[in-house]
Every structure is written in structure tokens, then in C-alpha cells.
């Protein structure tokens, strides 16, 4: 079991930011404010997570754990749309479903078939692994959606020309679909290929620190990496497919009110 960290020790660590703050001021780096805001947010958010996860784990109710997963998926979908400058009204439902369904199916498979839990909704697994899947799915969905819609908007005439030359909506969109899937999954595969060589992944490090044998930690890490990749792959395709269904009108034209005005 890993040694506990006292609150005072955490404060010592945070105090090391003070010289960085003054060094930044001296050099003229402009990110002191964003550094303080980011660190402050992290401290508050993680403190809150600690409180409510302790509460959630103590009850460990299937519906409460599932509700938490739903909320995380809703927040992830909202964040995806905000990052892609897309309107909630048009695309929240498709992006929410695309973000939720593949990780939810994967976590149930992971718990039931891989870890062989009796209770599939056990908070420790459902929430910890589920949030890991959701955060990775969100990152890849952001890249895929942004690439797809921005690329298409810039080259809309090429898309329309393909329609005029005999393509149906899906075959006309295929070049942008392929590009966005590659853009989203390329970095994931590159990271996967170097795992263990360049760095030890966070989950594995956490397990080793908490007293688990490195071999078991490696097995979990491997299972989680594969689960993440499959969830990302499925989510990107589902999110794009559902968004295409909502994002085009009956004439196969991209709906102009899909995009938010950039500030």
C-alpha cells in the first residue's frame, strides 16, 4: 500500500510554484495568471472529486454510478461542441450519444468479460475506468469533429462538386471523414506504440504506487489501452455519423446555423 501524503506535504509542493511565479515576472512570461488559475482550479476540482467520490463509493448504487457516468458524458459532449465552435441546439444529442454509448458499452464489457466482476456497476471500476474512457473519447472526438466540419466548410465547393458528379452524401463526404478519423487516431496510435518506452502510463504508475505487482499493473494497463482505443474508434465513427445526419439538410447541404460565431 502506498504511503499517505499529508496536506502539509501537498502545500510544500505547491509552494514550489512561488519561485516560478517570480521568475516568470522577472523574465516577462505572460502566463502567471493562467498558471495560477489552472493550478487553483485543479486543486478545487480534485478536492471536490475526493469528497463526492468518497460519498459515491460508500453507497455504490448502480443507478447513482450510472447517473454519474451520464453526467460526465454530458459535460464531455458540451466541452466537445464548445471546442469545435458548434451549436448545442443542433448537435448536442448526436455528440452526447456518440460520447456516451461506446464508452458505456466498453466499460460493461471490460467489467463483465475482462475483469469478471459480479457487480458490473461497481463504482471503483465504472467511474474510474469510465472516466478514463470518456476523457480519451472526448479528446479524439474534438479532433475528429473539428477536422471534419472545418475542413468541409473550407472546401464546401469540392463537396458540392462531388455531389454534382454523382456522389451520394456519404461518398461525397468520404475524403473528409477519412481525414478526420486519421487526424484523431493517428496521435493515439503513435502514443500507443511508444508506451512503456518513453513513459510509464499514469494508471500503471498509480497501481504500482498503491502496492499492486507490476505484472498485474501491466495487464490492467494493456486492457485499458485496448479498451480506450476501441471506444475512441467507435465513438469517432458514431459521433460523426450522427452529426452528419443532423448537420445536413434534405438537399445534402451543410446547415449554415451549425456553427457558432467565433468571438
Amino acid at each position, binding site marked *: 500500500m502506498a504511503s499517505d501524503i499529508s496536506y502539509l506535504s501537498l502545500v510544500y509542493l505547491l509552494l514550489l510554484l512561488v519561485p516560478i511565479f517570480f521568475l516568470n515576472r522577472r523574465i516577462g512570461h505572460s502566463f502567471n495568471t493562467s498558471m495560477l488559475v489552472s493550478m487553483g482550479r485543479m486543486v478545487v476540482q480534485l478536492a471536490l472529486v475526493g469528497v463526492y467520490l468518497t460519498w459515491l463509493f460508500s453507497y455504490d448504487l448502480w443507478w447513482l454510478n450510472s447517473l454519474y457516468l451520464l453526467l460526465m458524458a454530458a459535460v464531455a459532449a458540451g466541452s466537445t461542441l464548445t471546442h469545435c465552435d458548434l451549436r448545442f441546439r443542433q448537435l448536442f444529442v448526436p455528440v452526447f450519444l456518440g460520447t456516451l454509448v461506446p464508452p458505456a458499452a466498453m466499460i460493461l464489457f471490460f467489467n463483465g468479460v475482462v475483469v469478471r466482476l459480479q457487480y458490473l456497476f461497481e463504482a471503483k471500476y465504472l467511474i474510474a475506468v469510465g472516466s478514463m474512457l470518456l476523457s480519451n473519447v472526448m479528446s479524439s472526438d474534438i479532433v475528429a469533429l473539428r477536422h471534419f466540419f472545418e475542413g468541409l466548410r473550407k472546401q464546401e465547393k469540392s463537396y458540392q462538386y*462531388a455531389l454534382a458528379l454523382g*456522389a451520394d452524401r456519404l461518398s461525397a463526404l468520404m475524403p473528409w471523414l477519412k481525414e478526420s478519423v486519421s487526424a484523431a487516431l493517428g496521435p493515439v496510435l503513435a502514443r500507443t506504440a511508444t508506451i512503456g518506452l518513453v513513459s510509464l502510463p499514469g494508471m500503471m504508475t498509480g497501481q504500482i504506487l498503491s502496492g499492486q505487482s507490476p505484472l498485474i499493473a501491466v495487464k490492467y494497463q494493456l486492457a485499458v489501452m485496448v479498451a480506450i482505443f476501441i471506444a475512441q474508434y467507435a465513438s469517432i465513427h458514431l459521433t460523426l455519423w450522427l452529426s452528419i445526419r443532423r448537420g445536413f439538410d434534405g438537399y445534402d447541404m451543410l446547415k449554415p446555423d451549425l456553427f457558432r460565431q467565433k468571438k
Partner: protein
Amino acid sequence: MEPDRIPAVSLEHIHLSLGDRVLFQDFSLRIDPGDKVVLNAPSGSGKTTLLRMVLGFARPDAGSILVQGTPLSCQTVRSVRRSCAYVSQDVDLRELPVREVLTEIARYPANRDTDLSRAAVNPFFQRLNIDDDIWDKDIGELSGGERQRLGVAICAALDRPIWLLDEPLSALDDESARATVDLLTGSPATVLAISHHPGLMDSGGFREARF
């Protein structure tokens, strides 16, 4: 003209405004099968928009568009597009080698029964003075004139009954323009073209529609 023939393209009482600008106000145009029509109107008056409306890329505020007697709607737009071949002003093909562009077009659902092989397309390339080495060139490498002739050649190879051409001659030298005009006038297809090139009207094969 036989009045009872179903027109190839018919625009009826079209109204369209973009912002404060009125582009079309009660505009009507009938084009019979096999007709060759060149649209003549000042720049910015909506000629390109008119072609885009026939393809369902732009929609009028009021009025109706019929293609081969079929009213354009979201139910019919795909079959309407399948009866038209289009060359846009900038020939907006994706930046790929010409060979791959043709392969991609041949895979589109509407073209499954159309032969777009090298053997089928080369005669059109020859008629339009396009060198055989174009197959290995990237679209981005082509000159404006080569792009336009490639667009027209693809249009001809698709062998559709209605051709919609947006400035197909603007970047062509006299010889290529003549070859292109010959191809257009010799085709049995209905042609609706936007062009300021004198070669089209001088050919005697086109009638002018002013608005």
C-alpha cells in the same frame, strides 16, 4: 419548338434575395431538350446562383424549378443531380492525381453504369487537345485552361442529358475554345452555359438568354 414537349429545365417565377439584394424577381426560363443556351447578364447578377439552384445547392425564396418535368425538392434532388453534369467556375476537383480523381468519380453510386476508364475518357481528352500525360498530373499542377477542359471532358464522359457549365471557356486559348465549343454544339445534350466568350455565340449553335 414543340410546346407540349417536357422541358429539360424549367425555372418558373423564381424570386431570390441575398440580404438586401434582389437577384431574381419573377424570373422564368424554359430550356427544351437538346437546346444550347448561354446566359447573358452582368457580373454579380446571379448567373452562377441560377446554375446552383438547378442542382439544389441554392434554393429560391419562391418559385419552382423542374428538371425533365420533375419538380426539384429534397425527395427528387438526387435524381435531378444524376441527370445533370456540372462544371463549376473553378472546376473544384479535389487535389489528387487526375487518374485518382477519375477512379473516385467512377465509384460514385450514380456512375456505376458509366464507363470512365482511360479508353472511354481519352477520346474526349483528344477532342479537347488535352495531352495524355494529364493522367499522371495532380489537379493542383494543372493550368486554369487544363482544369476547364478536364471538367468539360468529365462532363462529356458522364454522358448525362443536361450539362450545366459555369464559364467553361474563360481560361482557354482560341484553339482550345474552338475545340470545346465544337464538342458542346455537337453533343445531343441540353447545355446551359454561363460564358462571356464570343466563341459560344459566334458558333451559331447557342441561343442567348438575357436577364
